[in-house]
């Protein structure tokens, strides 16, 4: 039975175990590394963005009409001899199916893969009713025999080795079985044939329920869904209401992207389209006894939810797990309840309750890798944070850091006062040089010791501003710098680098002092009200109409301003214009240098220093900026060396690295290994948060490679 950690302490214990499971780690790593190329190959020649937008739009239009689509489906399917049921709850669905089995004198059931049946724990129910249920998808059969839940939505037994499967099959067949995959598959084929031929009823899921013809569409590779729907005299399909589509066209569009997203296949071996009760020579009257049970279980209400309805666009491809750096470290049994991966963190709360969701939902980097591949265009990291917010609202005890943050962040003066105080408090701990802390303060455990932490700067950027400010006559551009907390209080030198680079270019730079934290940390902890409050303060401090551009040195701040502010402030009619101006004028440092100021190699020394680059999540996926920083490195005369997987999260992710230090450390280790392989002497990135993580990690491993913000590295190359 599935047993998901219900509190953080237990959860962290399990995460630690998973990190030490070498087989699991290796399997997941192989898949994680192979998947992106496979997906890309399978999608070659398709307009992926266009398809994603179409699928999202189709699903969004269908959601408010689900009940109508259900009626249409029912009318057509019933006219074709199918009985259509609507189950309000999981238990309803299970009981309906058990009754069908009894009414038809069923003893043995074969089942092809259905996540919806996993959701309702259908097998368990049917077995308690005295029915024999055999899963026929190889992976599902394996985990059924092991009494486990799936660890991936498409590859449910990905966590097991051939040896474990051989041991299992030895027990089941009572004959010794070798750990040879081809032979094991033959064993399954032989065993399964017997079951198929002796079963009275087949249960399947469906990927599509096409309303206007009452057709089910089922995707499978093994062909077991075909046998399940053909051999036994009774067929029951259990289908989530969200699988209803308005036409075949939508189904065919989804079919183009689903298999590539799931397993990197162009299409699965089989796609089966069933309309009506078909011929079945062993059934009374020569016709299949066919039932379709639609499951609500909260879906109708979810479809009407203004924030969460988009979760119902999900086509269950599993891509959000395939690309998730955390999934790749800890596996599905630690990254979902029944539904796995990013979507699992969300759906668990709705379908399987707060207790099962409350620990796992906190384990997200907001790195947006899932969002960038989801074929249904679901904003998964956003919904994960919203889900965490709901978990807190529904009574999960608020962590102390939430209370502290809520109190401090709303009050800029208090917040900045405390940061200045922190400088004094850390003084005895700070190293004389290098801006790093010598020892971690006592309240950090040793699991936090994977990176050195930076010291808070003696003089924050804002306190130097009056001296740094230079008036520019007849400026070409009026620019406001949005600094963010790290630049302001930890790395003011990054701001200095910007000033140095702007000199003599006709840029009137301003640093509006009323600005405060962008609010991302609050959002990350599910504190939407606080995030909204600071957003209002920042808009008050920086009136976008006063500037041509608002430049940031921090990718995280920028992506938060761009993505979250419109959402946070959408109910404030008067502010909509300002928010729009802000997001239109917002630009990251590298883009500003290359596309606006158009810097040229002539202005730089051309040192050809070897540099590696880390692509921050919030820059490459959040803002979609990928080329500009690389162009800037080239223009500045640096020798840019590509590293493996430059766009994978470094593990910082704000407070994440403090909550889950072991996972953060592992991501950092992989990142730094990749950088070291390049032979670079310098590592640059465009986010002070990433600088913190990467520099702290390099320092800990005693590496010679320096870590700098791209602005610093480029400023050092400037002539004169």
């Amino acid at each position: 039975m599935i047993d998901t950690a219900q509190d953080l302490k237990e959860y962290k214990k399990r995460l630690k175990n998973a990190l030490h499971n070498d087989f699991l780690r290796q399997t997941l790593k192989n898949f994680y590394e192979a998947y992106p190329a496979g997906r890309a190959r399978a999608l070659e020649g398709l307009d992926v963005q266009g398809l994603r937008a179409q699928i999202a739009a189709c699903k969004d239009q269908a959601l408010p009409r689900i009940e109508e689509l259900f009626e249409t489906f029912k009318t057509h399917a019933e006219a074709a001899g199918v009985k259509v049921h609507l189950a309000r709850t999981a238990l309803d669905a299970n009981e309906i199916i058990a009754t069908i089995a009894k009414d038809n004198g069923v003893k043995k059931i074969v089942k092809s893969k259905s996540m919806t049946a996993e959701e309702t724990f259908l097998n368990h129910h049917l077995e308690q009713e005295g029915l024999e249920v055999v899963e026929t998808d190889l992976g599902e059969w394996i985990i059924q025999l092991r009494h486990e839940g799936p660890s991936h939505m498409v590859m449910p037994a990905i966590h097991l080795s051939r040896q474990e499967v051989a041991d299992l099959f030895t027990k089941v067949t009572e004959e010794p079985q070798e750990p040879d995959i081809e032979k094991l598959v033959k064993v399954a084929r032989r065993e399964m044939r017997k079951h198929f031929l002796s079963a009275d009823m087949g249960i399947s899921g469906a990927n599509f329920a096409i309303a206007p013809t009452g057709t089910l569409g089922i995707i499978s590779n093994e062909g077991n869904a075909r046998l399940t729907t053909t051999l036994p005299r009774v067929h029951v399909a259990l289908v989530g209401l969200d699988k209803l589509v308005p036409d075949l066209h939508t189904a065919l569009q989804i079919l183009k992207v689903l298999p590539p997203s799931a397993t990197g296949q162009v299409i699965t071996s089989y796609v089966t389209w069933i309309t009506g009760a078909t011929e079945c020579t062993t059934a009374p009257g020569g016709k299949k006894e066919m039932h379709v049970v639609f499951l609500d279980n909260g879906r109708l209400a979810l479809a009407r939810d203004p924030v969460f309805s988009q979760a119902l666009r999900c086509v269950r491809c599993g891509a959000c797990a395939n690309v998730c750096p955390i999934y790749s470290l800890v596996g599905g049994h630690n990254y979902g309840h029944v539904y796995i991966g990013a979507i699992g963190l969300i759906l668990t709360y709705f379908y399987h309750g707060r207790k099962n969701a409350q620990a796992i939902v906190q384990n997200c980097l907001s790195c947006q890798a899932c969002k960038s591949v989801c074929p249904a265009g679901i904003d998964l990291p956003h919904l994960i944070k919203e889900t965490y917010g709901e978990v807190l609202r529904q009574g999960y005890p608020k962590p102390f850091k939430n209370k502290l943050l809520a109190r401090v962040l709303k009050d800029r003066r208090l917040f900045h006062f405390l940061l200045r105080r922190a400088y004094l408090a850390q003084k005895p701990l700070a190293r004389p040089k290098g801006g790093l802390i010598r020892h971690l303060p006592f309240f950090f455990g040793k699991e936090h010791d994977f990176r050195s932490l930076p010291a808070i700067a003696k003089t924050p950027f804002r306190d130097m501003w009056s001296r740094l400010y230079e008036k520019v006559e007849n400026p070409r551009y009026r620019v406001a710098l949005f600094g963010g907390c790290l630049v302001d209080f930890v790395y003011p030198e990054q701001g200095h680098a910007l000033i140095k680079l702007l000199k003599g270019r006709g840029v009137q730079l301003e640093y509006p002092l009323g600005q405060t934290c962008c609010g991302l940390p609050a959002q990350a902890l599910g504190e939407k009200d606080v995030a909204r409050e600071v957003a209002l303060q920042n808009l008050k401090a920086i009136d976008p109409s006063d500037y041509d551009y608002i430049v940031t040195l921090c990718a995280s701040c920028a992506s938060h301003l761009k993505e979250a502010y419109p959402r946070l402030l959408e109910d404030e009619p008067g502010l909509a214009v300002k928010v729009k101006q802000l997001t239109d004028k917002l630009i990251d440092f590298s883009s500003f240098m290359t596309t606006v100021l158009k810097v040229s190699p002539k202005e730089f020394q051309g040192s050809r220093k070897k540099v590696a680059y880390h692509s921050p999540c919030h820059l490459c996926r959040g803002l979609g900026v990928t080329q500009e920083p690389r162009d800037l490195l080239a223009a500045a005369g640096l020798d840019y060396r590509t590293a493996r997987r430059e766009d994978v999260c470094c593990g910082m992710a704000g407070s994440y690295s403090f909550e889950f230090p072991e996972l953060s450390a592992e991501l950092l280790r992989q990142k730094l290994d990749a950088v070291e392989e390049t032979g670079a002497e310098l590592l640059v990135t465009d986010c002070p948060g990433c600088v913190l993580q990467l520099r702290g990690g390099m320092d800990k491993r005693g590496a010679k490679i320096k870590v700098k913000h791209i602005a610093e590295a480029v400023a050092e190359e400037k002539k004169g």
Partner: protein
Amino acid sequence: MNHSRNMEILKERAEAVQVVVTEVPDPAQAWRYAVELTQKQGGAAIAAPGWDPDSLAALEKECAQAGLGLYRQNLRDQIGGFHTGLTRADWGIAATGTLVLESTSEDLRLATMLCETHVAVLPRSRLKPDSLSLEAELAKLMGEPPRYLAFITGASRTADIERVLTLGVHGPLELHLLILED
């Protein structure tokens, strides 16, 4: 895109999923292919539902000469008894290397699901560039129930143990596509 380019794409995509693609000039060659393949693989019989009487007569003769059994219907009674399933394909979809089989007849389904080797014959003219260009035909068929339509792309496969690709977990171990001149 023209027809011969589509044919190339179909072959490429199908071969990428281990389909054996062969062109045959006339039906007689298709029957011979199926018979010889069955013999070579040590099979004893062919299941060939859904063919017209003329085709069957020719096939029957080939099978008799080769000493192979031939089943045309009531395949429920022959489960385990046939090695090869020999069927037509109603359409081919180039973009994905897919065959479309109108499989409402139970015999046709059993032949394609329970054989060890599936040989499908696709008339050259029945090739479509992608699934959307077949949408109208499919929607029409779905509108006339009961209907069981199958997209078949390669043999039955699994990667459920250690993600190692293995063929023939439930359905056929091999798929052979014969492209027939018409």
